[in-house]
């Protein structure tokens, strides 16, 4: 009788689950922050509130950089192994 744990590569399956959750949900959330930052920055700029506009633009830049970092890191890890 073969046990279920011998058949299923539990480690690989768990890795699939947590990597997908962190990467998928994380990138969606961070990109939504980028959209929020860009949109709010544009609204504040039109209303001539420069400090708020700059703050939201910085938030958007950090969020976009975060998304790019996540994507590049993911590809590099895959290509290395």
């Amino acid at each position, binding site marked *: 009788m*073969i046990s279920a744990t*011998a*058949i*299923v*590569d539990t480690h*690989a*399956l768990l*890795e*699939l*689950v947590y*990597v*997908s*959750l962190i*990467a*998928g*949900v994380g*990138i*969606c*959330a961070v*990109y*939504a*922050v*980028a*959209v*929020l930052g*860009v*949109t*709010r920055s*544009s609204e504040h700029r039109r209303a001539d509130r420069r400090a708020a506009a700059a703050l939201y633009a910085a938030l958007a830049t950090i969020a976009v950089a975060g*998304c790019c970092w996540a*994507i590049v890191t*993911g*590809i590099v*890890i*895959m*290509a290395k*192994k």
Partner: protein
Amino acid sequence: MHSDLLIILVVATALAFDFTNGFHDTANVVATSISTRALSPRVAVTLAAILNFAGAFISLKVAATIGTGIVNAGAITMPIVFAGLIGASTWNLATWYFGLPSSSSHALIGGVVGAMIAANGTAAVQFGGLLGKVVIPAFVSPLLAFVVAGLGIVLTYRLVARLRPGPAGRGFRYGQIFSGGMLALAHGTNDAQKTMGVITLALIAHGDIARNHFAVPDWVVISAASAIALGTYVGGWRIIRTMGTRIIKMDPAQGFTAQTAGAAVVLAASHVGFPLSTTHVMAGGVMGAGAGKRVSAVRWGVASNMAIAWLLTLPAAAAVGATTYGATSLFGSGFLGPAIIATIAIIALIIAMTKRSRELAARPAGANS
């Protein structure tokens, strides 16, 4: 001489399958970008083809799983690989004919397993590997994509809730250029490797590669990448309609979330060597993004038709693979059997495509399916 002709036929059939895989799966990659108007159909398909090509070079773990983890590589012969490919291609074309987005990957695995059982019995199949690396991930992955997309869209809507829909939508349309690109890359990575694995199995059977040293030659990687990219470019317009609009109507945020969830799951699976179905994953992502907004937005009837097609894929492709192996072995173990079957398959394909194009031409303009 016959052996050399046979390996050429098997490699050509494998590349033809890879082409149909790209053709069949284009919808998974581009449907959401097209349905939300993030990209025009031609641009979306071109981008997908380029990134499918690039994706095939990222990893070889899935190819190793196909080559070493599902059937006994020591028992493989070229007629078995050929019969498996015909089984998979037949199922792929049948589902294309009826507009059902079933899994090319599971068709390929089913076809090879069926042909192997017909040739050597069940002992030559690694059922542990089949269950642990194909069947269980096949059940887990669409659910995972559903959950990731569902959580992703709920978080996204919370973050952008107070924004005006116009600018926010534009932001997510831009995002879809990247999420669609990542999905195409993921598709190339996971799906092209399956064909690489099968061609490598045939090369092992032909004696070009040692049975105990699985390694994918560079020319196999390049040719598989080219075939899937070409197939993606030619595209599957019928299936695009099913994936893009018939499951749910999507807004750009949902399209972005579904694609990001799909890309994350497929890339993570490629990393650990699971040969996933991009179709299953993407449909899970699309439904998750729909259900995260409103459960009733998902057309569950269409989704259940797709689920039935998926459940049938492994056994149906296995049955066609086994039957094809039986038919080829009637003509001996040489080149003649596969050559006759290949000729019959090409004639059947031409008849099916002609009939289909006549049916489409006879349909009134604007009819969808």
